[in-house]
C-alpha cells in the first residue's frame, strides 16, 4: 500500500491544488502534502517495511498484458526517499519566491512528483512509460510558464528531445513485449526474455537514447545547460536533483538486466561517451561565469561518472551508483538553494559580479562550502563514499579492456571538478566585496535550517553509509546477476 500511496498522495493533492485561490494557502498545502509523502516514505523504510506493504499489483489494461504493478525495492526505496525529501526541501527553500498563478505552479510541481514516484516504482514496462511521460508534461509547463526570458524555445527543445527519446523507448518496449511468450509487459517477463545478441543491439540503442537524453550523456546533453538556466530554480532543483535519476534508474532496472549482451558489447562505446562527457562537462564548467550554467555542466560530469560506473557492471560499482544517485540529488539541491539565495539577494548569478560574501554572510558561506566539497567528493562527505565505490567498480571490472584508461580519464574529471568548484568558491565567497555584495545580509533561519539538514545528511552518509549499503544490497545482487554476462554464462 505504501507504494500506491507514494503516487496517489502527490497526485490527488496536486489536482486539488489547482482549486486553491490564495498563494499562501496553496504553498502551505503543497508543503503539507510533501511532508505527508515524506512521512509515508519514511514509514515504508522503517516500521512498515514488510513485503506486503511495499508491493501492489492491480488489474489494468488486462487485454494488453499490462497491469498496475508497483513495488518498492531497495533502489525504489532510495529514490522515492530522495523524491520525497527533495520536494519539501524545495518548497521551504523557495518559500519566499513569488509566482504568478501560484496554484498552478504548485499543482504542477506535485503532479511531477507523482510522475517521478511512478517511474521509480513501476514494475510494468507500459506503466513505466506512462509515468515517464507523466513526469515530463508538468515540468514542460512549469519551465515554459515560469522560466527565464528564452524559456519557451529552450523548454520546447528539452521537450522534443525527451519526447523523441521516449518514443524510441516505446518501440523498444513494444518489440520486447511481442517477444515475451506470455505477451506481458511485466518486468519479470522482460527479465526472462534472454534475447539473442543480434536482436538486442537495436533495442539497446532505442532504450539507451531515451535514458541518455534524460540523464544527459554526451552527445545528447545540449538541451540541459539552457534548460537548467532558464527554468525557475525550484524546477531546476527537481530536474537536476531527481529527474536525471530517471535515466540512471532506467539503465539499472530496464536496460542492463533486460539486454545484458548488448550492454556488454556496447559497454565500451557507452563508457567512452560517458568519460568524454565527464571531461567535456568539467572543461566547460571551468569557463562559465553564470553560477547556474556552472552547476549544470558540472552535473553532466557527475552523471557521466555514474553512467560509466553502471556500465562497468560490477557489484561494488553499482552499489556506488545507487548511493551516489541519492547523494548527488541532495548535494546539487543544496547548491541550487544557495544560488537561488544569491540571485534573489543580488539579482545576478554572474560570478564576476560577486565576491567577498563570506565576510557578510558567514553562515551561507560555510554551509555552501561543505555542500560544494561534498560535490567534489572530499572524504568524510557522502560524495566520497559514492565516488570511491564507483571508481573501485570501474577499475576492477571485467566488462571492459580499457579499465585503466577510463579510470584515469574519469579521475581527471574529479580533479577538474575540484578546480572549478574551488575557483567558484574563491571568487564568490572570498576576496573583496564588490559594489553589489557590500550590503549583503546573511540567510534567514528557515534557509539555514534547510541547508543544515542537507549538511547533516552529507556527513551522516559520509561517515556511516552502512544503512544505505544494506538497503541496496539485495537489489544490487539481483541486477548484477541478470546483467553480468560472465556470471550468467557460468550459470548455463
Amino acid at each position, binding site marked *: 500500500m505504501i507504494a500506491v500511496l507514494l503516487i496517489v498522495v502527490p497526485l490527488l493533492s496536486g489536482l486539488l491544488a489547482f482549486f486553491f485561490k490564495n498563494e499562501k494557502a496553496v504553498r502551505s498545502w503543497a508543503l503539507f502534502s510533501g511532508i505527508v509523502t515524506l512521512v509515508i516514505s519514511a514509514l515504508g523504510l522503517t516500521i512498515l517495511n514488510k513485503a506486503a506493504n511495499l508491493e501492489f499489483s492491480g488489474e489494468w*489494461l*488486462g*487485454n494488453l498484458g499490462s497491469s498496475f504493478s508497483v513495488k518498492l525495492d531497495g533502489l525504489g526505496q532510495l529514490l522515492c526517499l530522495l523524491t520525497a525529501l527533495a520536494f519539501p526541501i524545495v518548497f521551504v527553500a523557495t518559500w519566499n519566491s513569488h509566482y504568478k498563478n501560484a496554484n498552478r505552479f504548485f499543482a504542477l510541481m506535485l503532479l511531477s512528483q507523482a510522475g517521478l514516484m511512478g517511474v521509480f516504482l513501476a514494475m510494468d514496462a507500459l506503466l513505466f*512509460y*506512462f509515468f515517464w*511521460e*507523466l513526469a515530463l*508534461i508538468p515540468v514542460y*509547463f512549469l519551465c*515554459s*510558464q515560469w522560466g527565464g526570458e528564452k*524559456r*519557451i524555445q529552450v523548454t*520546447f527543445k528539452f*521537450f*522534443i528531445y525527451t*519526447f*523523441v527519446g521516449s*518514443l*524510441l523507448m*516505446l*518501440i523498444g518496449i*513494444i*518489440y520486447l*513485449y*511481442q517477444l515475451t511468450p506470455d505477451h506481458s509487459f511485466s518486468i519479470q517477463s522482460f527479465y526472462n526474455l534472454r534475447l539473442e545478441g543480434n536482436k538486442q543491439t537495436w533495442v539497446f540503442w532505442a532504450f539507451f537514447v531515451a535514458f541518455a537524453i534524460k540523464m544527459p550523456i554526451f552527445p545528447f546533453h545540449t538541451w540541459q545547460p539552457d534548460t537548467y538556466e532558464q527554468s525557475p530554480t525550484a524546477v531546476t532543483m527537481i530536474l537536476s536533483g531527481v529527474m536525471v535519476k530517471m535515466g540512471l534508474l532506467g539503465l539499472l532496472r530496464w536496460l542492463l538486466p533486460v539486454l545484458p549482451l548488448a550492454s556488454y558489447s556496447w559497454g565500451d562505446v557507452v563508457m567512452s561517451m560517458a568519460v568524454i562527457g565527464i571531461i567535456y562537462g568539467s572543461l566547460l564548467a571551468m569557463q562559465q561565469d553564470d553560477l547556474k550554467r556552472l552547476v549544470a555542466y558540472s552535473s553532466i560530469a557527475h552523471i557521466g561518472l555514474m553512467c560509466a560506473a553502471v556500465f562497468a557492471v560490477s557489484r561494488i560499482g553499482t552499489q556506488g551508483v545507487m548511493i551516489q544517485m541519492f547523494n548527488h540529488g541532495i548535494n546539487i539541491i543544496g547548491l541550487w538553494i544557495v544560488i537561488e539565495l544569491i540571485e534573489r539577494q543580488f539579482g545576478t548569478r554572474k560570478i564576476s559580479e560577486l565576491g567577498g560574501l563570506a565576510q557578510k554572510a558567514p553562515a551561507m558561506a560555510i554551509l555552501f562550502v561543505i555542500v560544494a566539497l561534498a560535490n567534489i567528493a572530499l572524504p568524510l562527505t557522502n560524495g566520497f563514499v559514492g565516488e570511491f565505490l564507483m571508481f573501485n567498480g570501474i577499475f576492477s571490472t571485467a566488462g571492459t579492456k580499457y579499465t585503466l584508461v577510463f579510470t584515469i580519464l574519469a579521475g581527471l574529471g574529479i580533479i577538474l571538478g575540484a578546480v572549478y568548484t574551488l575557483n567558484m568558491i574563491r571568487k564568490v565567497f572570498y576576496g573583496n566585496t564588490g559594489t553589489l555584495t557590500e550590503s549583503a545580509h546573511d540567510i534567514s533561519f528557515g534557509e539555514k535550517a534547510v541547508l543544515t539538514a542537507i549538511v547533516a545528511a552529507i556527513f551522516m552518509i559520509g561517515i556511516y553509509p552502512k544503512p544505505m549499503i544494506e538497503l541496496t544490497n539485495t537489489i544490487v545482487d539481483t541486477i548484477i546477476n541478470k546483467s553480468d554476462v560472465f556470471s550468467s554464462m557460468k550459470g548455463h
Partner: protein
Amino acid sequence: MIDDMNALLLSAFWGVIMMFSSFLFKEKSAIRNLAIAGLILLIAANILEMNGRILFHIDTRGMIDFDRFSLLFNSIAFVSTFIYFLLSAKDIEKVGENYAEYFVLIFFILCGITLVTSFKSLLILFLGIEIISIPLYILTGADKRNLKSNEASLKYFLMGSFSTGLMLMGIALVYGAKGTFMTGIPLADMTNPATVPSAAPPLSVLFTAGMLLLLFSMSFKVSAAPFHFWTPDVYDGAPAVFTSFMATIVKVAVFAGFIRLFGDAFGTLQSQWQLLVAIITAATLFIGNITAVFQQSVKRMLAYSSISQAGFMLFALYAMNMDAKEGLILYAAAYSLATIGVFAVLIKLKDFSFEGFNGFSKKQPLLAATTTIFLLSLAGIPLTAGFLSKFYMLKAAMATGQNLWLVIFAVLMAAVSVFYYFRVIQAMYFKEGDGNADMTVTPAFKSVLVFLAIVVILLGVFPGLLLNWYYF
C-alpha cells in the same frame, strides 16, 4: 437472409423529417432540438441493435451485414455527431440561411456512413461513398458568398467525382475478374472452382488493376498522400463547422470502410498490397506532419494534422490484424472527439491564426485547459486516448514483424507533430495577447467540453470502456 438496419433506416428517415422541419418550425432552436433528438434516437436504436433488439427486418440478400465492428463504429460516429451538435450546432446558424437543410445533409451523410461501415457488396460501398460525398460537396460550398468556400466546393466536387470514377472503374474490373460484387467470396473460388484451397490464388491483371484503383480511390477519400491535395484547400475553404464534421466523423467512417474492403475482399492478398500501403502510410505521415509545421492558420494546421492522423490510421490497414481493428476503433473515437473539441473552440474565435490564441488561458482558462487536453491527445501523450490509440497502431504494425523502418519513421513523425500542436498550447499559456477578448460561451458549452475532456482521459486510462463493446 434477414438483416437488421435500425440506424440506417432511421437516419435516412430523420433526414426527411428534418427537411420538413424547415417550414414547420420558425425558430432555429426548435430545428436544432429536433436534430439532437434525432441523434439520441439514432444512438438508442444502434445500442438496441448491439444488444440484439432489431426494429426493422429487411432482406438485403447479404449485401449489408451489421457485424460488431460496424455497429460499434456507427455508435462512435453517432455519439461523436451528437457531441458535435451539442457543441457546434449553434454555430451552424452563422453559415447561411438554410439552417434545417444543413442538418438534413448531415443526417444523409450519417446514412451513408452506416452503409460504408457495413457493406458486403462493392455496390453498397459505392452507394455509401456517394451518399457521403454529395452532401459534403454541398456543405463545403454552404457559405455561398465566400469565394474560398465556392472554390473549395468546386475543387472538391471535381476531384471527388474523378476519384469516384476511379472507384467505379475498379469495382467494374473486380467484378470482371470475380463475377460477383460480394466482397466476402475469395477470388480463388470464383475464377476457378477446381483450384485446391492450398494453392495460391491466381492473380489476373483485371483483378489487380481493380484492386489498385480501389486502393487509390479510397486513399483519396481518406486523404492519404499522394492523393491528399484537395484536403487542405477544402478543409480550409469550407465553413469551419463543417470542416470539423468532415475531418472527423466522415473521415474515420471512410477508414472503417477502407479496412472492411481490404480485409474482406483483398485480405488474402495482403502480401501483394502491404508494401504499397506502407509507402502510402509513410508518405502521408511525412507530408501531413512536415507541412503542418509551416502553417500560420490553426484551421489549416488542423487540416494537415488530419492528414497526418490519417497516416497513423493507415497502420490499421497495413497491419490488418486483431490489434489493428481494436486500434482503429479506439483511434476513431480518440481522434474524432479531440478534433471536434478543438474545432468547437476554434469556431468561437474570430482569428484562426496561431496568434489568435495568444493569452487565451487568461481569458478563458477552462476552454484553454480542455483544448490543451485535446491537443495533448492528438499529439499522443500518455494518459490521453490519443496515446493508447497510437500505441495500438504501433503494436499492430510491430506484430506483422516486418518493415520496422515504418514504425520508427512514424514515431519520429509523431515527435514532429508535437511542434504544431504545442504551438497552440504555447500561444494559449505562455504568450500575451487579447485577440479574442470578446468571445462569449455558454455554461452548457463549457460543461460539454469538460465532459469531452474527461472522456478523452478516461479512454486513455481505461480503453476497455470502449473496446469491450467490440466483444460483448
